[in-house]
């Protein structure tokens, strides 16, 4: 059974190849069948593997499948190997399960688009790369998958490439994450330099012998890896690309920019947790980055008017929770939240996609309103998904994971992180229900008839994700105990009950406040927004604290300035000089090829004379 592991990513890869080589000559039905079917097969296989893993766990809690030795010349040996353990199984479940549902939804969502087959080929390539990322046994292959998902993200953000704004958004995402990737790559080199291996398990077992806790090298390595992680996961200070990434089709936002790729940073930190445990400073920084990001993103989400941007900021904020949990040493709750978040955020994005299509590609929430009767399924999805996002107590999946994070932060003594998380939860419930109340309550303010979607491809993914976003999803147990360190704090006890009650109360209070502010007439909000500090704050938050502005001033403009000033500088001259020199060398040497037989013979004779002279006199 386990030896079928490679098929999990082989199916989507095959789907990609078939669709890519068909070059758009397949019809929609066939493209959907291939694109959705391949991921569906992966999901089925993952389910079977999970069953096997839980009933008959492999020896040592992990199964390694060596696909092949790439090459071994001298001491250098590289192998392609996949590793199935609790962590990669959990990730695989999310990627293939949620991925399949989103593919299915996309089959409905993308109908009529001229790039239908192209869309599914990219999506399949993405799923294959993402699986490669989580299954790769070596950091080298993790990096390969890492770049692969980055490429797919770029291709899919700019999927509607005819609008230059989409291209710009894609480029921005690519460039910003590239900054992180570069740091990541340097970190890998450094790791290889100090441990002599990129094999993950080997590196993790060697690290404690090689590095003293808190040593500068391991701190530097973990910081560089963190650079990659914050880039991919849109955390401070490389978070600015994610809201713009919403330019892609909505299923892309659901799959890549909510459920899977953006959580790769969380996965990376969890995978290399041994290194972070050796570098307490880096681990603290992970928590700090998460806490600050979740607050900033929460404030920004409060004032957004684009339905997808609200969700994008909420994604940043939720990933902030995962980083926060990892910073507190609670790796298992982080991965747990990763999963529940994938369920409810995918649900919210798909439902948002349904709303957007129903309103004729309208994304401004203030041009919607009163949709609860016209789109009852989308409304239900938003209620449950939003409840889970706001961690509505006991009924939703989000509550279980977020409460676990808060409890671990509190109990392990990270009081600052705890309060930040708690306040963030309050913000979350406000902006989430602000969104729901504005979109689904009140009067319809849009143009044109609202028409709900229908069909299996439309309904099934929503319903399944809806169920998973309730407490059902919270009941799923992930087999992480062998892979990730135990939680820092004990479970149970009265104290945990109190923390749970507190966080539940905060969530409900936030919902209530949102109801008071945004249900019915919004006079108070309007007055608040009109006031001078209110205007200033909302503008500031709307622009996500002006990071784009800041980066534009700090990096982009100076860089452009420097390039302009330096258009003909010494470096340029040196580079141009090499080119000119080579050209001159070419012109000089090409004269030797004058086509004359006697000259050629003479060159041979001269060569022979030189060779003989060399062997005589050397």
């Amino acid at each position: 059974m386990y030896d079928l592991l490679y098929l999990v990513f082989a199916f989507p890869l095959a789907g990609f190849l078939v669709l890519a080589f068909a070059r758009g000559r397949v019809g929609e039905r066939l493209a959907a069948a291939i694109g959705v079917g391949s991921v569906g097969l992966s999901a089925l296989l993952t389910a079977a593997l999970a069953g096997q893993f839980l009933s008959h766990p492999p020896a040592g809690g992990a199964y390694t499948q060596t696909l092949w030795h790439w090459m071994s010349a001298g001491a250098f040996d590289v192998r392609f190997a996949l590793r199935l353990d609790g962590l990669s199984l959990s990730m695989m479940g999310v990627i293939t399960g949620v991925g399949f549902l989103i593919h299915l939804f996309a089959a409905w969502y993308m109908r009529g688009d001229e790039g239908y087959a192209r869309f599914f080929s990219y999506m399949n390539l993405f799923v294959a790369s993402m699986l490669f990322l989580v299954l790769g046994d070596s950091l080298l292959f993790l990096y390969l998958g890492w770049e692969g998902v980055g490429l797919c993200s770029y291709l899919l953000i700019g999927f509607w490439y005819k609008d230059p704004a989409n291209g710009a958004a894609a480029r921005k995402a690519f460039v910003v994450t590239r900054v992180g990737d570069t740091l990541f790559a340097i970190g890998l080199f450094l790791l290889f330099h100090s441990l002599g291996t990129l094999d993950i398990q080997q590196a993790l077992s060697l690290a404690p012998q090689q590095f003293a806790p808190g040593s500068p090298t391991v701190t530097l390595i973990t910081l560089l890896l963190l650079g990659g992680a914050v880039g991919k996961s849109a955390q401070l200070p490389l978070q600015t690309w994610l809201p713009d990434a919403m330019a892609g089709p909505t299923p892309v936002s659901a799959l890549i920019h909510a459920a899977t790729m953006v959580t790769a940073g969380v996965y990376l930190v969890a995978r290399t947790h041994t290194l972070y445990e050796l570098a307490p400073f880096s681990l603290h920084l992970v928590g700090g980055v998460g806490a600050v990001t979740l607050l900033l993103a929460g404030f920004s989400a409060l004032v957004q008017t684009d339905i997808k941007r609200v969700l994008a900021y909420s994604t940043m904020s939720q990933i902030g929770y995962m980083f926060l949990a990892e910073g507190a040493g609670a790796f298992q709750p982080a991965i747990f939240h990763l999963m529940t978040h994938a369920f409810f955020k995918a649900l919210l994005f798909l439902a948002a996609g349904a709303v957007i299509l129903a309103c004729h590609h309208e994304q401004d929430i203030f041009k919607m309103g009163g949709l609860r009767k016209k789109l009852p399924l989308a409304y239900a999805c938003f209620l449950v998904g939003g409840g889970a996002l706001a961690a509505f107590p006991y009924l939703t999946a989000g509550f279980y994971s977020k409460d676990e994070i808060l409890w671990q932060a509190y109990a392990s003594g990270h009081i600052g992180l705890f309060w930040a998380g708690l306040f963030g939860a309050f913000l979350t419930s406000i902006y989430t229900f602000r969104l729901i109340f504005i979109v689904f309550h009140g009067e319809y303010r849009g143009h044109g008839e609202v028409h709900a979607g229908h069909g299996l491809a439309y309904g099934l993914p929503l319903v399944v994700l809806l169920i998973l976003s309730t407490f059902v999803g919270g009941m799923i147990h992930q087999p992480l105990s062998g892979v990730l360190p135990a939680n820092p704090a004990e479970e149970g006890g009265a104290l945990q009950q109190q923390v749970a009650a507190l966080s539940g109360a905060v969530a409900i209070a936030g919902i209530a406040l949102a109801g008071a502010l945004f249900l019915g007439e919004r006079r108070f909000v309007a007055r608040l927004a009109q006031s001078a500090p209110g205007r200033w704050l909302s503008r500031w938050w709307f622009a996500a604290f002006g990071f784009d502005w800041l980066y534009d001033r700090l990096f982009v403009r100076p860089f452009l300035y420097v390039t302009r000033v330096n258009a003909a500088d010494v470096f340029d001259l040196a580079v141009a000089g090499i080119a000119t020199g080579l050209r001159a060398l070419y012109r000089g040497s090409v004269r030797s090829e004058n086509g004359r037989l006697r000259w050629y013979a003479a060159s041979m004779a001269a060569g022979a004379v030189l060779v003989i002279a060399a062997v005589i006199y050397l």
Partner: protein
Amino acid sequence: MTEATTLPLEHALILSGILFALGLLGILARRNVLFVLMSIEIMMNAAALAFVAAGSRWHAADGQILFILILTLAASEASVGLALVLQIYRRFGTLDTDAAGELKG
């Protein structure tokens, strides 16, 4: 010739060296393909002479065997080369090697 007395090997090798250099000179200096082919024969012959002389030094038939093989080669080379000469004369109207200089650069 049966009562041959000893000759120094280097004399024979020097003779073959001179012939070899002369053959090379012919190839480098002549523009007519026909002369170039003749010069190639001279070089081959020089190498053959060196083999026979060396074989004589070691009292072995190997040198003369190689001579025979070189003879085979010289015949092959000459026949293909002369066929080519005929064809070139037909196509180019001249035997000047410098005239055939379309390929260059």
